[in-house]
């Protein structure tokens, strides 16, 4: 069940839009924060609060990549491998992280602490190579920096 705070947040969101449907994207973020990922029950709950057909929520959730359809680790490490990062050896950074965590991209460590992903450009190309861990950007990466960042999260 969604917490009272979450339900209230959804009601606040509702005031920002003329249609209930417009609330789906912000509400999916609320679900993701509450449950860690987008659960089917969570989607049904928001459909109910917004008084819309659940299928409308499902179809939005599957289109956008930032809604996690399954659980991710406590730290979601997303390494940019697009062009500007790649020119400055973003793939090497990915390798270093992969070795350090003992997992490949799209995998989660057995202790559920880290999930590793590759992502398309995150709009931080001038400070490439870069990665994002949860909401935070880490820029101008090199081996030593990556090592230090990951150690600090251990």
């Amino acid at each position, binding site marked *: 069940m969604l917490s009272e705070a979450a339900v209230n947040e959804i009601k606040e969101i509702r005031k920002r839009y*003329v249609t209930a449907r417009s609330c789906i994207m912000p509400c999916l973020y609320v679900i993701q924060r509450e449950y860690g990922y987008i659960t089917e029950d969570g989607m049904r709950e928001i459909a109910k609060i917004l008084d819309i057909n659940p299928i409308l929520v499902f179809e939005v959730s599957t289109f*956008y990549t930032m809604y996690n359809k399954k659980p991710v680790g406590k730290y979601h490490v997303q390494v940019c491998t697009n062009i500007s990062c790649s020119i400055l050896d973003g793939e090497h950074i990915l390798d270093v992280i992969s070795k350090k965590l003992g997992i490949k991209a799209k995998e989660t460590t057995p202790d559920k602490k880290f999930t590793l992903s590759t992502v398309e450009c995150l709009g931080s190309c001038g400070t490439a190579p870069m990665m994002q861990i949860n909401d935070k950007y880490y820029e101008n990466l090199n081996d030593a920096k990556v090592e230090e960042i990951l150690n600090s999260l251990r």
Partner: protein
Amino acid sequence: MFEPVILKNINVADSHKLSTYLGSGGYQGLKKALDMTPDALIQMVKDSGLRGRGGAGFSTGLKWSFIPKDATLQKYLCCNADEGEPGTFKDRAIMEYDPHQLIEGMAIASYAIGADTSYIYIRGEFALAADRLEDAIKEAYQKKYLGKNILGSNFNHDMYVHRGAGAYICGEETALLESIEGRRALPRIKPPFPAHVGLFGKPTVINNVETLACIPHIVNRGASWFASIGPAKSPGPKLYGISGSVNKPGLYELPMGTPLREIIYTHAGGIKDGKKLKAVIPGGVSAPMLTEKDLDTPMDFDSLAAKGTMLGSGAVIVIDDSMCIVKAALITHEFFHHESCGKCTPCREGLDWLVKVMRRIEHGQGKEGDIELLEKLCVDIFGRTFCPLGDGAVMALRGAFNNFREEFDFHIKNKRCMVNGNR
């Protein structure tokens, strides 16, 4: 000497706070604008010559003037902050370091077109920027720059942040509208254009962050000040984001039309590690690449179009001679393939096919006839897709072919890379 205006506060402590913004003359433009008629404001923006900084380069004042004048009609302004074109990182800086500049620009634009509500559609990954915008909007409400009877006028305006969730296509304006309306971001057919049937079916203007950030300065300093910077047909200050193989990558505010050579060698400090420049993508990955011989091209809409490429977002990506163009092209096309919304067949199937062929070439399994196949696919995709995403992919590939065809041929013939020998 050109003095930055959009980035002038970027290195000031607490540049994102209202107090800092006010200290540098913030919200004076809004005050002045509210004393003008909406028509006079639109004329001023037209006279300034401002062209949209999102990529298309359409006249901003003209776009505003398409909004019906009927005062009883609900109208909207949407800020396109879905910065997602690889190489581009200019709008994030404005939102993180000077969110009030955007808010002021949006309030003025909304007044000009008669919109009582606006949305900032920001890409989901920009969490810090979204937080700062939310905080800045709160501050602006408190000081009556937003809300009811703004600064004692009759103008009411509400502003909201709408976070995207990871889909490049949302940068396409009609897909952006679909996304705010709570749907999959599939582009709409045009016409009708958003100026007549936009958000929730109402007249809507969609402007890029950098475009809107220019507005307070135009109102403050006048249209002729803006028009006097850079080339007559696309004037104004411009943010250039330089990334890739240069010594000083970053964001530079320079007059529109600054030559590519000056941007790369004077401002960005030249090529990294003493390497040689091989190619430059001038405006984000959709823009066909240029080479050494084109470095004296002024970076503005028309000069780049004349070279068969485009200014796009002003994102300059520098590729040095240690990078294989086949690989660069593959990375770019993996992106387009991943981001195709799937609505139309030429883009959905075409890019999938294109990427499959490019992958095998890159991995040393290319076959004779593959280049011809890619060229044929380009013909089949270009101009036949629902929105410009497919065209962007084709233009990028054609740019690579035009300049570096021999690298593709070498890959296929020798089953390895011409540049670093890799298989």
